[in-house]
């Protein structure tokens, strides 16, 4: 004999009311939990009704109705329990979801890149958009690649300005081993293995025998550029560097080019950036000059092309810049030593 559906309805209504009243009187979380277990627990009251759903002789529409009633009972009671709990919490110290919203967010553990890496990335990404592709070279070099192939013969006065660190290892057929004093040796390595046209960038660490002070360190970083191809001319060199400067320092950035001397370029130039602090008026940073020396560049010297076996008449341009100097200018850093001291209070200032 199955219980009539109407009486079941009544029974569930009564049960719900009874539960709601008990709930209203509950003063402790434990009381609420006990109530939840009694009605909604695995062996709770509500679960006793579910087998009725499958009872023989009950018409299908009644089963559906009963199922809906049971689910409604469950949802309603869960809602009541949730509200009662929130209400109790509220009495204890605030309304539901009424935490102190001025509390700080939980810290997110994300690290940071070193400012030198960030600066290199920024330089590279601008040149990448101008069609240059980055490659890397070794930090340990031979005299041939560091000097001779770059048109800096032994005893040449310009070799004087590169005071190098030599390694205590047996020399190779390409001369003594040293720590590269510039990224330019990679020009030679790349050209030995590739044919023009191409436009490459070489970021990397270089070494000079400089005593350490606020503006010098025996190690620093450079980004080198080399473009070789048909019909390149001096105006292209200027255009590429001007475009880079605007990307790096903003659309207002101005460069000026002065003749200079580098053994591996002819003509050679030094580029100055109109001081980004005083806009060219003259200040402490630019030494009242209004201009900041920022990079060296020029058309590749034919002797360099000859050294790598390129045919006469090959044309290209090259440039090189100091990453620390650019980072120092851009972020107002006054001491190069900070980059390699790794004081976390310094490093964590950069996003």
């Amino acid at each position: 004999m199955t219980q009539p559906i109407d009486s079941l309805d009544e029974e569930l209504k009564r049960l719900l009311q009874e539960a709601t009243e008990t709930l209203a009187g509950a003063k402790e979380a434990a009381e609420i939990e006990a109530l939840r277990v009694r009605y909604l627990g695995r062996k709770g009251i509500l679960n006793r009704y579910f087998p009725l759903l499958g009872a023989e002789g009950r018409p299908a529409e009644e089963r559906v109705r009963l199922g809906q009633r049971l689910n409604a009972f469950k949802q309603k009671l869960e809602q009541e329990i949730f509200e009662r709990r929130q209400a109790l919490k509220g009495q204890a110290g605030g309304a539901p979801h009424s935490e102190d919203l001025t509390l700080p967010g939980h810290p997110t553990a994300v690290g940071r890149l070193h400012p030198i890496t960030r600066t290199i990335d920024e330089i590279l990404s601008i040149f990448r958009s101008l069609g240059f592709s980055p490659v890397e070279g070794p930090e340990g070099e031979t005299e041939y690649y560091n000097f001779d192939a770059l048109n800096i013969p032994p005893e040449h006065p310009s070799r004087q300005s590169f005071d190098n660190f030599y390694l205590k290892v047996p020399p190779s057929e390409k001369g003594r081993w040293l720590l590269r004093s510039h990224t330019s040796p990679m020009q030679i390595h790349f050209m030995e293995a590739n044919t023009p046209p191409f436009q490459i960038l070489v970021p990397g660490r270089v070494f000079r025998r400089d005593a350490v002070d606020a503006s010098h360190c025996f190690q620093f970083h450079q980004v080198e550029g080399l473009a070789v191809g048909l019909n390149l001319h001096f105006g292209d060199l200027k255009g590429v560097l001007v475009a880079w400067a605007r990307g790096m320092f903003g659309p207002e950035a101005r460069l000026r080019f002065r003749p200079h001397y580098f053994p591996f370029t002819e003509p050679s130039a030094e580029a100055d950036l109109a001081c980004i602090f005083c806009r060219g008026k003259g200040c402490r940073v630019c030494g009242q000059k209004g201009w900041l020396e920022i990079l060296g560049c020029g058309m590749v010297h034919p002797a360099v092309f000859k050294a790598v076996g390129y045919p006469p008449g090959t044309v290209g341009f090259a440039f090189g810049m100091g990453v620390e100097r650019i980072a120092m200018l851009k972020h107002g850093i006054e001491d190069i030593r900070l980059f390699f001291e790794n004081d976390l209070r310094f490093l964590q200032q950069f996003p």
Partner: protein
Amino acid sequence: MRFLLSWLKEFIELSLHPSAIAERLTMGGVEVTGLTQIEGDWLFELEVTPNRPDLLSHLGIARETAALLGRPFRFPRWLQRQMLPLEGGPQPPSLQITLQDPEGCRRYCGLILEGVTVKAGPPRLTERLSRLGVRPINNVVDVTNLCMLEVGQPLHAFDLDKLEGSAIQVRRARPGETLVTIDGVSHPLTPEMLVIADGRRPIALAGVMGGRETEITPATRRILLESAWFDPIRIRRSSRLSRLGSESSYRFERGVDPAGVPAAAIRSARWIADLSGGNISGGLIDVGGSETPKVRIPLRPQRAAEVLGMPVTLSQQRRFLEQLGCRVAGTATLWQVEPPSWREDLRIPEDLYEELVRLWGYERCAPTLPPVARTAVVLEGRPPEDPWMKRQRQIRQWLVAAGMQEIMTHSLLSPEDLARGGSPFTKGAISLENPLSVDQGVLRNTLLVGALQTVARNLNRKATEGFELFEMGRIFSEDPGRRPKETSALALLVAGERAPAWGLRPAPLGLFHLKGILEMLLQRLRVESVMEAGSVSGGFLDPGIRLKLGKEPLGVLGWVDPKVLAAYEIPPEPAVAYAQIDLDLIRQAVTPPVRMQALPKVPPVVRDLAILVHEAATHREIVQAIEEAGAPLLKSAALFDLYKGKQVPSGKKSMAFRLSYSAGDRTLTEEEISATHQRIVGALQAAFQAVLR
């Protein structure tokens, strides 16, 4: 190089303001680094590049200024008169001069003065010298210096009466010879050095400095005046080997005007005679002065305009070259340009291109952009970016996302700092031949030292309580018989705890935190590496894990031995976990593009399994057993709890795994799952005497 405006004006007319002159010089490639007004005069300081020795005199600056201002330069008459050949024509030499090293000394001119009175020079001239930073000595030496500053030719005066014999030799020094130079220092000489010698001994280190024994003194009556052309390389070597430099060697090692040698001798002799009351005796002795072959540079003016990207006409180009003292001949399309004798830096067409664009103005050259798509790199079938450069950027980004801070430490360390970590560091480390200081005497062969120094420094400064650091950089080691080994390495270091924050449990930064990062990294790099627990050779990590890629050692991971920490002045707490891997090995690993796997159509069934096992049983063994027994339905077994202590019998540990079952496209039946689960339990019971909890 310094020059005085008043002196420059003896060569050219100038009405421009000094700052305008400075601007023009700077923008023309002769950088003015200082400009100061002194008592009605202006002192310019220049940075002269090593290719332009012709600018190391007032005459040279005057020529350059004229050219940069677009004017022809006229050699002043008054100076020309001082350089006219001596009256009376050639006379038999009273002194025999021989050039025994014609390569080292191409030309040597000597002049003898008699009856001189050596005294202080006139104030007008000594003041000029002082302003230019040269110490006045006496009227004779002052003239040699003035003449050098005037026309760029270094000169030397010997006290002729102190010379032995009547012959002068320009030769290489002989082994065992020494020379006391005028600064009083005794120099041992070597055959690499060029000297001036009398009949008995060296009397000067040629082109660098004279000897004390033959220097001009107040007692000097007879003088031998020397004006010569010495080989730049030879002078540079002499100067370097003797560690002696002078205004004279500075000019010789850059190259003086070979055509100016005799004129400078005559000019200075007349000047000395004038100031000292002496007279020139005999004629100019001029040895080795053969004509240097004429240089002719082929120049295609059309090509020059193309390479410079400037619309400069042929007549403008010709005018620029002539302003510089070049002679231009040849046809309309192919010129033959003969540079002046003082411009030995002009030898190839490209040298002339620079002169042209310099006089045209670098600023007037319009910036353009080359076609971007010329990257050959694409034509040759290579990606536009070196894949390894990209990979390294990704590695950095993944590590940053995992909370790691990038650091950059010194590539050069003090041998002592390296040795503090013990033998694994000193072994095979490469030293520098010529360190600047002992603090930078050796190349790093590990990134650990820099990382530990970073920890020590930051602990000292109380900058943080937790460390999550990484560095990517090159390390070096000896590879006997082969080139020095340079490796790209990655170091990871964690220690301490993250700063406490409300609502979060403190996260200890230890070995397993680090191992998690390393596992993440290797998984993303998709390299099949193996980790082997055990001690790491040399013992700087204890305990440690060795990583392998195939058969190659990929790196290490472990706790840094407290003894090593102490050596770098780090307290034993917080403990430091460190890992270092060889990125070059990873670079070689081939990683094909990711192939996506079909998503399961049915969600997996998840069951937890908690067991008690002997505490010596390792996680790896247990997971292996679970995976074997669970195949093929078991998809993963993840440890989510590990517990020893209360409620667990001693000698045992409790491990809880979350097991995930799936058969891909179909729904698993309860029977299938139970059977697999039971198999797993059975296997664990058999192999580890595991007890279900």
